């Protein structure tokens, strides 16, 4: 059982505020991912929870008890660092034993615990090895093992996969998700990679410049981004964003036009009047190719990924959009195509970048 509660947490360096008031409740056994571009303060926030950075203002509660003044070791958390931070002169066994030894645990109990963890992480053959003799993935597992042996209330991960190559990253992602299912420990995970966030998180916290932009389940963020920043940050390839203006408004939809495209989007337009400037957002996977209609643009580049093809289409008004089509799409560069965004999956943002409420709920969407 472990919950973490942040109450208006702030961090100030000299006179610059890095974290501008973050409030968040992390439930027991939850896997929460902090995601955002570099410099958004996600690592600082994690280090404040860990106790490695002081909290300038606000309150941190672990299991309902104020932990602001507790040292890193007393908080009962364990952290996996980006550089793994293994102790290079100790072998794998000693690395995992270090915290237990400092805590004064009897040798027999230590050995038992490390053996258990080594079995879970398949580290048994490497217990005598020094970190320098291990591969990146193995070191990563040792770092995780060092966190697990302490039996912490909460696991903290600081971009743990960013030093691994793409294939290994995919594999470790699955291993981490499996491990979380198995241990059921509360986990806070920091990453700049939205794929890691989408695939592993129960809930995602999107940060920008020290401010929480949105908190929600992965699909919540994907289907109902609260603003333009979240919309563009989540999802790969990135959402197409086109400046548009409103043509007409009804109770349950707004019709907008941008260049050669006119779309009727099922949103609550609120106080917006026809003629108002808005931003139309539509993901590449939600744009279809219209074979019958008049061509609206030219294919500039086609990126063939095998399972899918990304067509970079130059619209007749000069704007470029990305369309995701099937892997067997035959359109070559310079061929003329018509594009039709799926109105149900279009997003509208007002002049400030805030999303207009979408009226169609997605069937997979949970938690909102």
């Amino acid at each position: 059982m472990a919950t973490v509660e942040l109450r208006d947490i702030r961090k100030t360096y000299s006179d610059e505020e890095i974290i501008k008031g973050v409030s968040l409740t992390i439930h027991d056994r939850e896997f929460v991912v902090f995601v955002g571009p570099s410099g958004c303060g996600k690592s600082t926030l994690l280090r404040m929870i860990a106790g490695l950075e002081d909290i300038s203002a606000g309150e941190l509660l672990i299991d309902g008890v104020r932990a602001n003044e507790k040292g890193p070791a007393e908080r009962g958390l364990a952290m996996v660092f980006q550089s793994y931070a293994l102790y290079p002169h100790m072998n794998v066994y000693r690395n995992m034993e270090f915290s237990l030894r400092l805590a004064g645990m009897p040798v027999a109990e230590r050995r038992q615990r490390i053996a258990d963890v080594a079995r879970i992480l398949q580290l048994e053959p490497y217990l005598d090895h020094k970190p320098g003799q291990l591969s990146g993935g193995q070191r990563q597992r040792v770092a995780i093992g060092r966190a697990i042996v302490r039996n912490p209330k909460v696991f903290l991960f600081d971009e743990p996969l960013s030093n691994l190559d793409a294939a290994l990253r995919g594999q470790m992602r699955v291993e981490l998700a499996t491990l979380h299912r198995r241990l059921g420990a509360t986990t806070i995970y920091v990453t700049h990679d939205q794929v890691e966030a989408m695939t592993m998180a129960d809930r995602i916290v999107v940060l920008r410049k020290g401010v929480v932009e949105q908190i929600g389940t992965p699909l919540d963020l994907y289907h109902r981004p609260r603003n333009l920043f979240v919309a563009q940050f989540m999802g790969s390839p990135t959402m197409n964003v086109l400046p548009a203006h409103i043509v007409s408004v009804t109770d349950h939809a707004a019709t907008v036009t941008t260049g050669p495209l006119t779309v009727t989007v099922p949103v609550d337009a609120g106080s917006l009047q026809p003629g108002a400037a808005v931003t139309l957002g539509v993901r590449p996977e939600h744009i279809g190719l219209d074979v019958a209609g008049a061509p609206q643009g030219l294919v500039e580049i086609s990126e063939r990924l095998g399972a899918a093809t990304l067509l970079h289409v130059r619209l007749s008004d000069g704007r470029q959009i990305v369309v995701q089509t099937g892997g067997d799409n035959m359109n070559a560069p310079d061929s003329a195509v018509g594009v039709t965004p799926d109105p149900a999956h279009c997003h509208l943002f007002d002049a400030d970048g805030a999303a207009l409420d979408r009226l169609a709920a997605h069937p997979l969407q949970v938690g909102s």
Partner: protein
Amino acid sequence: MDQAARRIPVAAPVGRPSHARRTGGALLLSPAVILLLIWSLVPLAMTLWYSVRRYNLVDPTQVGFAGASNYVYLLTDPDFITALLNTAILVGGVLVITVGLGTLLAVLFDQSFLGRGIARVLVISPFFVMPTVSALLWKNLMLHPIYGVYSAMMRAVGLTPVDWLSRYPLATLVMIVSWEWLPFAILILLTAIQSLDAEQKEAARMDGAGPLAQFRYIILPHLSRAITVVIMIETIFLLAVFAEISVTTAGGPGVASTNLAFLIYSRALLQFDVGGASAGGVVAIVIANIVAAFLLRAVARNLEA
């Protein structure tokens, strides 16, 4: 044929160096190698030669082979044993002080505090003072029983000043030489500490390690390689400490502060016994090589790990 000959230099660097190329390279290297050989082999040969000769600068009638008698005379001389012991105390004492204090100060100077840049320059600066000058500074400015700073301080609190250099000659020398070499140790160890990954210290903090445990389990093992290097380099120089002794105590009182280097000097240029001094030189070479062999093995093992 002319063309074929011209092509060879282009093709040659790709494969293995040809025999002709290697010979050419050796030929070009030879002036430097031969010069270095002469530089080190000739003095060695002459020392060996003189060490078996009767050769006294004040008595030209003493000539001819001495056989082993120079060595016998030296090795049975109680002064030689004293000098050997003094050398060991000097080297060992300075090593303990500089490495021990150097490690602690390096950790201290790694912390951020006001005026750290200036403090770092100050702590390094004794290294730039040449040995004779620093020995004179200590002898006359700091430790002089009448107008030295220490004597003034002792008198100020009602104590009788101590004539350091005649009462505790060797301990004073250890202190002076330590003062000269401490900056070197700090410099090497500080740079080594700065290369320690900050995340490792943070991981140790998360694991519950306090400052002492961090020092014992993280910082000290990280420094072990640098410490070996400091010990090796300092030992090489400390075996040959001469200027400080010559300036302050001239080996005395008696032979209380005479080390091997100074003993050889006094044999040759104070007692004018070149043969005996050469025998001492040969013994010094043997000792230096034994020490070097041990140190190099220790360093090699440490660098491997």
